[in-house]
């Protein structure tokens, strides 16, 4: 049987190409995740253990304060040094993260003090290690990030003195850390409390462990002594738990890819079985039992699965290597966990074989008489059963009910929504054979006026409902998942943005403790990012820094919509609803302050009474009053706030223009600025969108490969029809057009349903997630990211076009004579 299967594969290798690709991509995805994440873990671990790289023995002890005694006791290090065999004892070089800037570039660098030569883990490439405290050495990677060179000056962020780069090292960088060295002044080293000591040993490190443990008894608490190798291994494994969670999460996406791949594989085998009906009938006529026929198909699927999964492993390696090149972890090589890769391979094989079970059973049901049928039977387009309709109907009803429950709100709403999603997905995908073909036929009739080519194309795509449905199903699933996540993220983003817009209508609010010079206001107004600028006057209340402002027409001047409670009437004062310094100064308890309370503020001719209104959008040290009242309060008005309207509040570049100018004015701080929050939200959401689209994009690619597969195989069985059409006078281009329309039709149906379902699920997910938050906090605004979603649709349609090219050429090249010859 193996021989037969092999011969079948060898005879028609191209038929299985698309399937192999689908398996390779799925398995490759899973393998890539495994290798990539493991490699990152290794790289991180290595980075964490950098200081330990050259130590032979590592002694760790807890820094503690017990009974008025500070542990470890002084002399701890000496005790270790006294042990025979110990060459050097040194405290672990401390490291801290520093943010360095050069010009407009910033980088976060892990800064170590210079390790002693015998413990140095990297090489100096140029220059020397820092010796003074205005010097530093940086790794090549750090220099690249800052765009700096040996001899340049860099400045710690927020600092006022430059550091000069005196040396370059060859430290590698990984996704998270870049390395640099600073010099810590000698005297402060002794005062530095550290609990880790690195020991260099002459001879075997393991032999020294016991003596060291004895030597430090009583001098420290909770002391552990281990060899350097052990300590390094520990550092590597420290993050395993966290990394594992991350890995499992990513493998979830891998599972999705495998699922979509399974649908494609099942499709391929179904088509192939259909096309080989005569052969299979012959096998049965000659005496093969149904079990033997089934077995043959299963063996074929095993071979394909094995080869495809192997290819997938190779693909996964390549992708992981590419990813490692980007993050820099290739310096530490690729970390391979053979078990995980074996599992990935096995998963590919198992999925392929499972997917071929249905077709194998169908193959075993071919009757021997079919071998004798000279006119090839049309693919038996079996009508999807009543059972399917009932099951999917029930799932649909259940799903709808769960949606209603989920919309009812409550803490479990999101869970109900997820269950609803599962039920509805089963209903929609399972019922596909029932509606895909009629849908295609309907659209075909609409387009039928475009000519016989188009009409035939639609009818062709629908003539085998199950095949058209399965192909569209894979796409529905993949597109549906991506759109769900895209819609959820876009909705969350726009809802969050709407809330930010409402609560923080001013893009940038700069508050100063002194008067803001009008030159600064002009400077800000002149920035290309700034559309309007308004200076807000304030008057001090008391002497504790609190002040009163009257926004007056500021909102209108800025062209911004007034937030809800923002403009006081005469006699009103707006104070912060949770803590108002003004209220406190006036003798009221800020915690219980409510609207309607009365507060007295000193006026020009005696105390003025105000009615309090609490608001969340007033800052704690400010009160808002009406313009008339502002005039009657004592004191000289000075401009202490500047309000800015930017052209695009979501752009961090624009915000940076403003903060760059304000950096020179440390007395001004940003408060309640909508632009800050908007740009952070946008950045976070954009990153998530990219990552999720890429992860699920793999599944979409597989589904599209499936479309090409279906088309390609269908053309084979339609050779005679193509030949007949050519004989009757259809041009080659006409046949290619027909295939194109077929491809577009299938993809359009799958994409459309995926889009609708995905949007609904995304909306539902966000809505139920919001419902578990306190009321009125977030207003739901449904959105679809225009770029990502239309990009997705465009990619699918383009792929449809591409998928139809080769089958189209094949159909067009059908020669009438060859194919029409009586078989």
């Amino acid at each position, binding site marked *: 049987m193996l021989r037969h299967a092999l011969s079948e594969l060898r005879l028609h290798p191209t038929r299985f190409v698309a399937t192999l690709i689908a398996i390779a991509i799925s398995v490759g995805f899973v393998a890539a995740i495994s290798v990539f994440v493991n490699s990152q873990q290794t790289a991180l671990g290595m980075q964490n253990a950098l200081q330990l790289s050259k130590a032979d023995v590592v002694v760790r002890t807890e820094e503690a304060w017990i009974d008025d005694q500070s542990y470890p006791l002084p002399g701890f290090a000496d005790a270790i040094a006294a042990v025979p065999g110990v060459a050097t004892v040194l405290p672990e070089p401390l490291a801290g993260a520093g943010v360095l800037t050069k010009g407009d570039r910033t980088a976060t660098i892990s800064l170590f003090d210079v390790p002693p030569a015998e413990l140095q883990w990297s090489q100096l490439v140029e220059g020397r290690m820092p010796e003074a405290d205005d010097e530093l050495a940086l790794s090549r990677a750090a220099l690249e990030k800052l765009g700096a060179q040996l001899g340049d000056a860099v400045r710690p962020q927020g600092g006022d003195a430059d550091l000069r780069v005196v040396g370059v090292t060859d430290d590698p960088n990984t996704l998270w850390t870049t390395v640099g060295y600073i010099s810590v002044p000698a005297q402060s080293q002794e005062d530095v409390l550290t609990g880790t000591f690195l020991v260099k040993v002459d001879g075997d490190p393991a032999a020294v462990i016991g003596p060291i443990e004895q030597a430090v008894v009583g001098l420290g608490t909770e002391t552990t002594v281990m060899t350097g190798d052990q300590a390094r291994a520990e550092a590597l494994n420290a993050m395993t738990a966290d990394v594992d969670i991350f890995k499992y999460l990513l493998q979830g996406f891998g599972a999705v890819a495998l699922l979509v791949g399974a649908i494609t594989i099942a499709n391929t085998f179904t088509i192939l079985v259909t096309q080989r009906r005569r052969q299979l009938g012959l096998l049965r006529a000659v005496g093969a039992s149904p079990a033997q026929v089934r077995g043959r198909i299963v063996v074929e699927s095993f071979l394909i699965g094995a080869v495809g999964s192997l290819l997938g492993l190779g693909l996964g390696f390549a992708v992981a290597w590419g990813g490692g090149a980007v993050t820099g972890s290739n310096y530490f090589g690729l970390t391979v966990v053979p078990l995980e890769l074996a599992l990935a391979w096995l998963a590919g094989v198992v999925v392929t074989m499972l997917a071929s079970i249905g077709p194998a059973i169908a193959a075993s049901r071919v009757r021997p008489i079919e071998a004798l049928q000279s006119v090839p039977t049309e693919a038996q387009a079996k009508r999807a059963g009543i059972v399917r309709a009932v099951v999917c109907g029930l799932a649909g009803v259940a799903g709808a009910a769960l949606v209603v429950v989920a919309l009812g709100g409550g803490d479990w709403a999101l869970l109900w929504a997820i269950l609803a999603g599962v039920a509805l997905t089963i209903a929609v995908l399972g019922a596909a054979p029932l509606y895909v073909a009629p849908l295609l036929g309907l659209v075909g009739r609409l387009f039928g006026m475009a000519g016989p080519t188009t009409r035939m194309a639609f009818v062709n795509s629908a003539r085998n409902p199950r095949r058209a449905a399965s192909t569209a199903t894979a796409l529905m699933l993949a597109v549906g998942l991506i759109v769900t996540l895209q819609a959820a993220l876009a909705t969350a983003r726009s809802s969050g943005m709407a809330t930010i817009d409402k609560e923080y209508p001013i893009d940038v609010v700069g508050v100063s403790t002194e008067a803001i010079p009008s030159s600064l206001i002009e400077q800000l107004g002149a920035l290309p990012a700034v559309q309007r600028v308004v200076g807000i006057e304030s008057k001090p209340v008391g002497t504790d820094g609190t002040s009163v402002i009257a926004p007056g027409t500021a909102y209108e001047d800025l062209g911004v919509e007034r937030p809800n409670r923002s403009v006081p009437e005469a006699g009103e004062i707006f104070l912060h609803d949770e803590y108002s310094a003004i209220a406190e100064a006036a003798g009221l308890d800020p915690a219980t302050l409510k609207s309607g309370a009365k507060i007295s503020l000193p006026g020009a001719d005696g105390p003025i009474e105000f009615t309090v209104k609490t608001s969340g959008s007033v800052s704690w040290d400010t009160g808002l009053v009406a313009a008339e009242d502002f005039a009657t309060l004592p004191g000289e008005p000075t401009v202490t706030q500047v309000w800015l309207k930017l052209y695009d509040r979501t752009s961090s570049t624009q915000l940076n223009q403003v903060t760059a100018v304000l950096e020179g004015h440390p007395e001004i701080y940003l408060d309640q600025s909508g632009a800050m929050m908007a740009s952070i939200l946008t950045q976070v959401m954009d990153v998530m969108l990219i990552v999720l689209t890429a992860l699920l994009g793999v599944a979409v690619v597989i589904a599209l490969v499936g479309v090409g597969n279906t088309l390609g195989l269908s053309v084979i069985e339609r050779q005679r029809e193509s030949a007949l059409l050519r*004989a009757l006078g259809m041009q080659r281009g006409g046949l290619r057009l027909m295939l194109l329309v077929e491809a577009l039709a299938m993809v359009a149906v799958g994409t459309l349903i995926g889009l609708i379902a995905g949007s609904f699920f995304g909306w539902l997910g966000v809505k139920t997630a919001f419902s578990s938050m306190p009321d009125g906090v977030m207003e739901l605004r449904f959105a679809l990211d225009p770029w990502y979603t239309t990009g997705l649709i465009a990619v699918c349609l383009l792929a449809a076009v591409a998928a139809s090219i080769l089958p189209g050429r094949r159909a067009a090249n059908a020669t009438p004579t060859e194919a029409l010859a009586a078989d």
Partner: protein
Amino acid sequence: MTTQLDQVPACGTQNLTKVFGSGEQPVVAVDDVSVAIARGSFTAIMGPSGSGKSTLMHCMAGLDRPTNGAVYVGADNIAGMSERDVTRVRRDKVGFVFQSFNLLPTLTAEQNITLPLELAGRKVDRQFLGAVVSSLGLADRLTHRPSQLSGGQQQRVAVARALMTRPEVIFADEPTGALDQKTGTALLEYLQACARDQGQTIIMVTHDPRAAGYADRALMLLDGRVVDDIANPSAEALALQLGVMG
């Protein structure tokens, strides 16, 4: 009364040669054949298997390219035309009836019949369609798919399709091969009537002497050459001839 047009043959060949394969043993399927087919004639092309009759028909119908020589449909030599132009000739000037698998399974009978016209973008003459359909007895079958039609009905639909474009010539390749005797006879009588009464030129390839008996000219092929050209053939004489040829 003969007119100038009548004297131009409906189709024909001039020194037509078709060779298959180029290696050691090339097969000369058609060997320097020159024939002229008169308008309104019903010609049978006969011969034992391997005589080249199918290949000759393929070349004359523009389904295959000759290795040498000229092929005329009407007054045009299609041997030198581009693929696009030959396709157009097939669409507009030639009609086909094959032995089996004539129809597109996804179209109804009516759609099959009007297919060449639709491909050409020409309007369907509904009166003519009605006449053809009723003369073939297909009026109540128009909305059926081929899978719902009998073999004889399928062949009749193919004939209707061939007639709709009013082609220069209709090629029929063993049209009765898959039919029972009664149905086959009816079909042949219809084709004969088309030629005689409508002036439709028909060329039929067949190995059945009884079928060839309906034609008014029989060309006998052997080893790629025309060995005999019989006017008003009778079935018995043809059978004898075939028997002699072996």
